C-alpha cells in the first residue's frame, strides 16, 4: 500500500514539475494562434485555431531556406566537434607526454574568454581566409570546443586505466585502442556532446549574422530577429509562430536524442 502511495506521489511531483517546465513553451504555442488585436487586449486562449500566423511567418522571411541552412551548419559542426574533441580528450587522458597539463590548462582557458571580445578579430580572420558567406566560415571556427574536450575528458577518466595498461601490454596501438575501446565505451558522452553541439550551433545569432551576406547561407535565428520591428508594432502572434517553427526541429531532436542517449547509457553501463 505504501508503495502505491509513494508511486502516486512521485507521479504527482513529476507532473507538477513538467507543467512548470513546459509552461512557457505551451504559452508561446497558444500565443502563436492569436491575432494582433486579441493579443493586445490581453487574451491568451485563441478563439479560432487558424494557422494564419504560421503562413505569414513563412511568407515574411525565407524560413524554409533558413531552416535547411541551420540544419547543415549544425550537423557539420556536430561532426567536426566530435572528431576534434574526442581526439584531444583521448590524448589528455591516456597519453603521457611533457607539456600535456599545460596544453590542457590552455584548453580550459579558452572557455573563459568572453566570445564578444573575440568576435571582431575573428571576423577579420575569416574574411581574410575568404570564408565569408559560405558554410566554412559558419562551421570551422567551432570545430574545436573546450567544452567538448572537457566533457569527454571527464568521461574518459571514468574508463578504468587498467584497460589501457592491458592494451599496452598486448601491443595494441593507441589509435586502435581509441577507436575500438574508448569510443564505444563513451557513447553516452559522445551522444550528449553531439546533441549539445548541434543545439548550440542551431541557436547562434551574432556570428551567423556577421559572416553571412545573404539568405543563401543564413540561419534561422536571424529570421526570428528579422520579424521584430522597432518603430512599427511587431506582430507578436507571427513572431511566436516563428518561435514555434524554430524550436520545433530542436525539440524533435531532443525527443529522439533522449532515447538514443538512453540506449547508449545501457551499453555504457556494462563495464
Amino acid at each position, binding site marked *: 500500500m505504501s508503495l502505491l502511495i509513494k508511486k502516486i506521489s512521485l507521479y504527482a511531483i513529476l507532473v507538477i514539475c513538467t507543467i512548470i517546465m513546459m509552461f512557457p513553451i505551451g504559452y508561446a504555442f497558444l500565443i502563436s494562434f492569436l491575432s494582433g488585436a486579441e493579443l*493586445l487586449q490581453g487574451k491568451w486562449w485563441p478563439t479560432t485555431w487558424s494557422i494564419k500566423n504560421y503562413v505569414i511567418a513563412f511568407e*515574411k522571411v525565407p524560413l524554409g531556406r533558413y531552416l535547411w541552412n541551420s540544419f547543415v551548419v549544425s550537423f557539420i559542426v556536430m561532426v567536426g566537434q566530435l*572528431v576534434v574533441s574526442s581526439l584531444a580528450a583521448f590524448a589528455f587522458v591516456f597519453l603521457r607526454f611533457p607539456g600535456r597539463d599545460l596544453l590542457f590548462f590552455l584548453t580550459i582557458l579558452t572557455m573563459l574568454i568572453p566570445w564578444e571580445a573575440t568576435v571582431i578579430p575573428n571576423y577579420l580572420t575569416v574574411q581574410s581566409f575568404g570564408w565569408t558567406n*559560405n*558554410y*566554412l566560415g559558419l562551421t570551422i571556427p567551432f570545430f574545436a570546443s573546450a567544452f567538448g574536450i572537457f566533457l569527454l575528458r571527464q568521461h574518459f577518466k571514468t574508463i578504468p586505466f587498467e584497460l589501457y595498461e592491458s592494451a599496452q601490454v598486448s601491443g595494441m596501438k593507441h*589509435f586502435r585502442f581509441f577507436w575500438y575501446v574508448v569510443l564505444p565505451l563513451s557513447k553516452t558522452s559522445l551522444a550528449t556532446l553531439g546533441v549539445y553541439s548541434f543545439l548550440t550551433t542551431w541557436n547562434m545569432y551574432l556570428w551567423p549574422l*556577421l559572416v553571412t551576406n545573404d539568405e543563401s547561407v543564413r540561419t534561422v535565428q536571424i529570421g526570428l530577429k528579422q520579424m521584430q520591428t522597432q518603430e512599427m508594432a511587431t506582430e507578436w502572434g507571427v513572431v511566436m509562430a516563428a518561435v514555434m517553427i524554430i524550436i520545433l526541429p530542436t525539440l524533435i531532436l531532443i525527443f529522439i536524442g533522449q532515447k538514443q542517449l538512453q540506449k547508449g547509457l545501457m551499453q555504457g553501463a556494462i563495464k
Partner: protein
Amino acid sequence: MKKWISTLLIASTLVGCNSGSDETVSKTNDQKDEEQQVQKTEVVFWHAMSGDLEKALNEIVADFNASQSTIEVKPVFQGTYEEALTKFNAVAGTKDSPTLMQTFEIGTKYMIESGKIEPVQKFIDEEGYDVSQWEKNIVNYYTVNGTIYSMPFNSSTPVLIYNKDAFKEAGLDPEKPPMTYSELKAAAKQLTKDGKYGFSILNYGWFFEQMLAVQGGLYVNEENGRKGEATEVAFNGKEGLRVFELIYDMYNEGTFYNVGQNWDDMRAAFQSGKMAMYLDSSAGVRTIVDSAPFQVGVSYLPIPDDVERQGVIIGGASLWLMKDVDEEKKKAAWEFMKYVTTPEVQAKWHVNTGYFAVNPSAYDLPIVKEQWEKYPQLMVTVNQLKETKATPATQGALISIFPQARQKIVSAMESLYQGVEPKEALERAANEINRELEMAKKR
C-alpha cells in the same frame, strides 16, 4: 605511425568534404554573378528594415528592378542599425562591401568621419539634380557644412498619441488634446484612475532630444555641433530641466506610467488601456490606429507653457554610398536613389510605412489623399514637420558619440523613477557625456 595517418586522413577527408562542397556552392554563385554582370549592374543594398518595413522595402526594390533592365538592386537585411554598422566597419573597402547602405540618423557624423563613403552631393552636382523638390527639413538634417552626404530615406518624428474614448469618459474634449505641459498634467490627472495612468514616455534618448528641440534647446554646444566640433553638452540648461521635471513631477503625482525601453511594451500598455496618452514615432501611427480597440487621436508634441514652439527633429535613417566600389555601381545606386525619391514611390512608402515622404509632392497624389481620408491622424504628423522652423535646435545634434549619450540619458530617465532629483539626474548624465566627448577627441 599508422594511427596518426588514419587520424590525419579522417581529418583531411572531413575538411576536404566541406571545402569540396563549398567550392561548388561558390562556383555556382560566381557563375550567377558573371551572368548578371554581363547584363546587369548589381547593387548590394544593406538595410536594417525588419518585419512589415522589410516587406514594404522589398516591394519598392522589386518594382525598381522590373522598371529597367540594366540595374539589379539586391536588398540584404543586416540586423539592427548597430549590427549593420559593425559589419560595415569590417568590410568597407573590401569585396564584401555593399554599394548602398542604410544608417540611422545618429550615425551621420560617424559615417562622414569613417572616410569610406561618397557624398551624394557629388552626383547631385554632376547631374544638376534639383534638391529643392525634397522636404527642406529632412534635407536640413543631412546637410553638413553645405554638403548633402546621404540620401534621406525613412524619416519620422515624435507625436502625442491619445485614447479618445478615455478622454470622453474622463470628461475631456477628445478633439482638444493637451498642447502644453500644464494642460498635459491636468489632463493626465483626470485620466488617472483604477490602475490606469494618464501619460507615458518611452525611456529612449530620442524623445528627450525631441522635447528639448521643440523648446529650441540645444543638445551640445557649437550650435549643436553644426558649426564646429562639439566639446560640451548643452542639454542641461533650463529646457532639459523642464523635461526632467515634467517626468519627475508626473511620476510622483502618480499620473505617469513607466513603460521601460521597449516600443512594443509601450504600445501594448496603451492598447490595453493602461495609459491614455503617450509619445510615439509617427511611423507607428497607422498600426496603432488599426489595432487599438478604441478611437485614437494624434497631436503635436506638448511644450512647456509660455514657450514658443520650434518644431521637431527628423529621426530615422538615410542611404549612404560607398566610396571604394566601381564607378559604374555607384552610378547604378544613384539611379536607384533617384527612383526612390520620386513622388510615386515616396507616396507608396509613406502609405505603407508611415514614414514621411522625402518628396512632399507625394502628398498630392491620390493614394496619399485616400489614405489620409482613412487615417486623418497621419496628416497631423506631416503638418508638425512642415511647421518646423529651421534652427540649429531642430536641425539636430551632430556628435559621433550619440549612442553613448543616449544610454546615459536613458539611465538618467530611469533614475527619476527611483526618486533622484531631476537636477541631479541631468547633471550626472551631462558629466558622463562630457567625458565621452573629451575621450572621443583623443581618438
